[in-house]
């Protein structure tokens, strides 16, 4: 088998399973007795084992195999789930993550024998243990009413069936025989299973799912299904699959009677028809949900999506160019056609953008595990609450937002939330809460990271900032608490020595801010001493194509994102007055500072225009702050495709990127946040 061909798929699916494992293990940690979570973990580990064995990654297969043995014992309740086992399983998942990545890089990966030994220690009889339990279950099977049932059921299986019967679902034993000429038995099994999923939940197969996959069975196999659906329809459907010669469906005896509480038993013994009818709806809905998922999503290579977006970008640019030609040469036919084309391109653009949207859960998913590890490390009790993980963002934003979020979260855990004793002393619950909430707000996505910790002390920040020379004493005196807190985002403030001294909230916060602003967003902080802090990150939905106002300074063209613009107005030079050496003017009673772009952008003096009689001002805003930018010419509003300036030109403070204009020339996009700060 040419492994390379499948490598991408293997990596992607392995990562998904590992993420699922992490999540389920966290769930298990909170609820050690949860059989269904154990089942999920088992399935993920099992799939990983199968995939890696197929790909020839024997080390991964070996480790997952040993994990499976342990999980099987847990599932069968022969082994009790405790902290040590969960820790060990977490370590296995971490190791698997590294193994998968090194497999992806073509490296050999680490040695797992120590870990395997530890797992083996838990399962003293090695692989024999599960078999023994299965055998032990046999004599327990109530023989009398099992006449029609030629299938072994463990106590757990029976409990599950009983619970389902309690809900009015029927436990069905389905015996399926394949044609003796059947070539791809595993494929038939797969089709049978997929069909059965539409009818209910498969809880057991004989032989095991693994053996079925590997075609280690004769010509027939057995399935136990929980279903509220019509048996005849099921039979017809199964017989419709080619090479299936017979299907025998029998109802399992009522395990619920007697075994459960009176109430449940009463429900279970109510006429099956009525119960089935009642429960038909949810079952059908489940099947439908399943269908919607499997039919509508397609895995697309991210590079292809990027290429598609670039092409759409080129179309948008060329459309603009054509429009210019139409206007310049006064060609009404062309202008009219372009108006039509405009509609189509806008639609195309919207759709491509939508395709690139990814739920933020992709980023959020990695935090529960991180919070667990950090809170153990710090010996704090912390509860992470995640909301709005279904909120969608452009893939480019998703890729970039992980690190800043992690940074803020870590700070909240490390320095925001107090130890349990401190919390008790402060009259709070010992367990600290950290909330991670994503939501939509117009064309933005807002992510809040909120903790109920000790908050940030503005006086302390001020003192430290003065000490470190970030601000002067004079500036410090003038600052209110709100402004003081914002110092944590100042570049000079976040040197390592400062950080360890103070509450630590300064750790790389300037980096966080820079990153978020590079994404066209902004970050803000609200804090109350003793009550907690809240970081609010506002991000644009997408980064690829935006609306912008093109302006000129001397003969240079720049783009200002429309999202940052309030309005444009004209003033005369005498409207400008000077306050504390800064130029300002009055707009409806509000004092607006003036920014002279030619100075900010170092436009050479000879190119700068002489003072005009009338000045064009673009009023921009960043959060609550406003400023008026003096420009020489307003060119007009356009859709622009954002292009990066490349690795060589990162960190140019006032420039957010570039775009190609209709005439093929490059215009730079202004980063309004830094323009306002540096002017």
């Amino acid at each position, binding site marked *: 088998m040419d492994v390379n061909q499948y490598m991408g798929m293997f990596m992607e699916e392995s990562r998904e399973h590992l993420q699922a494992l992490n999540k389920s293990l966290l769930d298990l940690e909170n609820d050690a007795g949860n059989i269904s979570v154990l089942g999920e973990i088992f399935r993920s580990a099992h799939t990983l084992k199968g995939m890696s064995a197929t790909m020839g990654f024997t080390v991964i297969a070996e480790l997952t195999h040993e994990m499976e043995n342990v999980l099987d014992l847990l599932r069968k309740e022969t082994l009790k789930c405790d902290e040590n086992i969960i820790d060990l399983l977490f370590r296995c998942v971490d190791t698997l993550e590294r193994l998968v990545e090194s497999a992806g890089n073509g490296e050999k990966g680490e040695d797992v024998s120590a870990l395997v030994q530890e797992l083996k220690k838990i399962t003293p009889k090695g692989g024999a243990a599960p078999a023994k339990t299965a055998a032990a279950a046999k004599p327990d099977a109530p023989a009398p009413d099992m006449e029609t049932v030629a299938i072994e059921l463990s106590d757990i299986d029976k409990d599950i069936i009983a619970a389902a019967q309690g809900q009015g679902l029927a436990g069905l034993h389905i015996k399926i025989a394949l044609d003796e000429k059947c070539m791809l038995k595993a494929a038939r099994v797969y089709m049978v299973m997929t069909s059965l999923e539409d009818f209910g939940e498969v809880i057991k197969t004989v032989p095991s799912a693994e053996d079925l996959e590997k075609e280690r069975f004769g010509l027939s196999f057995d399935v136990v299904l929980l279903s509220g659906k019509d048996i005849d329809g099921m039979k017809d459907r199964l017989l419709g699959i080619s090479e299936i010669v017979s299907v025998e469906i029998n109802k399992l005896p009522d395990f619920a009677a007697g075994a459960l509480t009176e109430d449940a038993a009463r429900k279970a013994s109510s006429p099956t028809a009525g119960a089935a009818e009642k429960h038909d709806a949810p079952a059908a809905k489940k099947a439908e949900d399943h269908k919607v998922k499997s039919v509508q999503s397609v895995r697309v290579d991210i590079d292809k999506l990027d290429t598609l977006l670039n092409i759409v970008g080129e179309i948008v640019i060329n459309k603009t160019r054509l429009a210019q030609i139409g206007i310049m040469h006064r060609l009404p036919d062309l202008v009219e056609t372009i108006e039509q084309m405009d509609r189509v391109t806008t639609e195309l653009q919207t759709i491509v953008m939508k395709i690139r949207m990814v739920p933020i859960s992709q980023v959020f998913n990695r935090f529960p595990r991180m919070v667990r590890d950090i809170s153990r490390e710090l010996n704090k009790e912390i509860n992470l609450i995640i909301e709005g993980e279904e909120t969608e963002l452009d893939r480019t934003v998703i890729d970039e937002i992980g690190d800043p979020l992690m940074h803020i979260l870590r700070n909240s855990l490390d320095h925001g939330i107090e130890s349990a004793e401190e919390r008790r002393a402060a009259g709070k619950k010992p367990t600290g809460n950290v909330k991670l909430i994503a939501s939509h707000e117009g064309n933005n996505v807002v992510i809040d990271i909120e903790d109920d910790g000790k908050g940030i002390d503005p006086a302390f920040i001020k003192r430290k900032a003065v000490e470190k020379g970030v601000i002067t004493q004079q500036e410090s005196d003038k600052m209110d608490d709100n402004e003081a807190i914002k110092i944590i985002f100042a570049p000079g403030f976040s040197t390592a020595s400062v950080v360890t001294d103070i509450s630590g909230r300064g750790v790389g916060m300037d980096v966080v801010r820079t990153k978020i602003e590079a994404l066209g967003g902004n970050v803000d902080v609200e804090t109350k001493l003793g009550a907690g802090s809240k970081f609010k990150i506002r991000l644009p939905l997408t980064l690829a194509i935006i609306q912008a106002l093109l302006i000129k300074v001397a003969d240079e063209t720049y783009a200002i994102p429309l999202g940052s613009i309030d309005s444009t107005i004209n003033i005369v030079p005498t409207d400008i007055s000077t306050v504390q050496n800064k130029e300002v003017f009055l707009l409806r009673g509000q004092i607006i500072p003036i920014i002279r772009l030619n100075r900010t952008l170092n436009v050479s003096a000879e190119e700068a225009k002489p003072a005009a009689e009338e000045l064009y001002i673009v009023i921009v805003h960043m959060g609550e702050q406003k400023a008026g930018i003096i420009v020489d010419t307003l060119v007009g509003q356009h859709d622009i495709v954002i292009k990066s300036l490349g690795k*060589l030109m990162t960190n140019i403070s006032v420039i957010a990127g570039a775009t190609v204009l209709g005439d093929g020339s490059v215009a730079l996009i202004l980063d309004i946040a830094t323009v306002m700060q540096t002017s």
Partner: protein
Amino acid sequence: MSENRSLAKNSDETRVREEIQLVVFKLAMEEYAIDIGHVSEIRKMLAITRVPKTPEYYLGVMNLRGSVLPVIDLKKRLSLPSTAKTEDSRIIILSVDDISFGVTVDAVSEVSIIDKADIEPPSSIDTNVENRFVVGVGKHNNRLLIMLSVKEIVGLA
């Protein structure tokens, strides 16, 4: 590249002759060269947009079939005297470590193949350029070609 290697008798020992291909260009009347492996294309002068707050040797950015590339004024980068653009001025598009950028040169003269044995280490011959930019000096048809480090030009070295 087996055709570039031929066996030649050199005193008693047999040694492998290795050749490299260079793109040769002019900067302020001197001849310089860059390993062809780094050169992706050569363009006539294009419109370049100045980018504020970048080092002086950056001319700005240009549009190369839809992507935006930085352009470095190679004479400024090497602290050579500035001369006016002419008809012969070119932008050489270079790439190193997945980074693409352009450098301006006064003229591109030729693509030459030179024997590695004819390359002197940078320190042995005095050039007008700071030593860190020079990876070697090649002797080719009685001319001296100053071979430049692409990584050093973009400051990646």
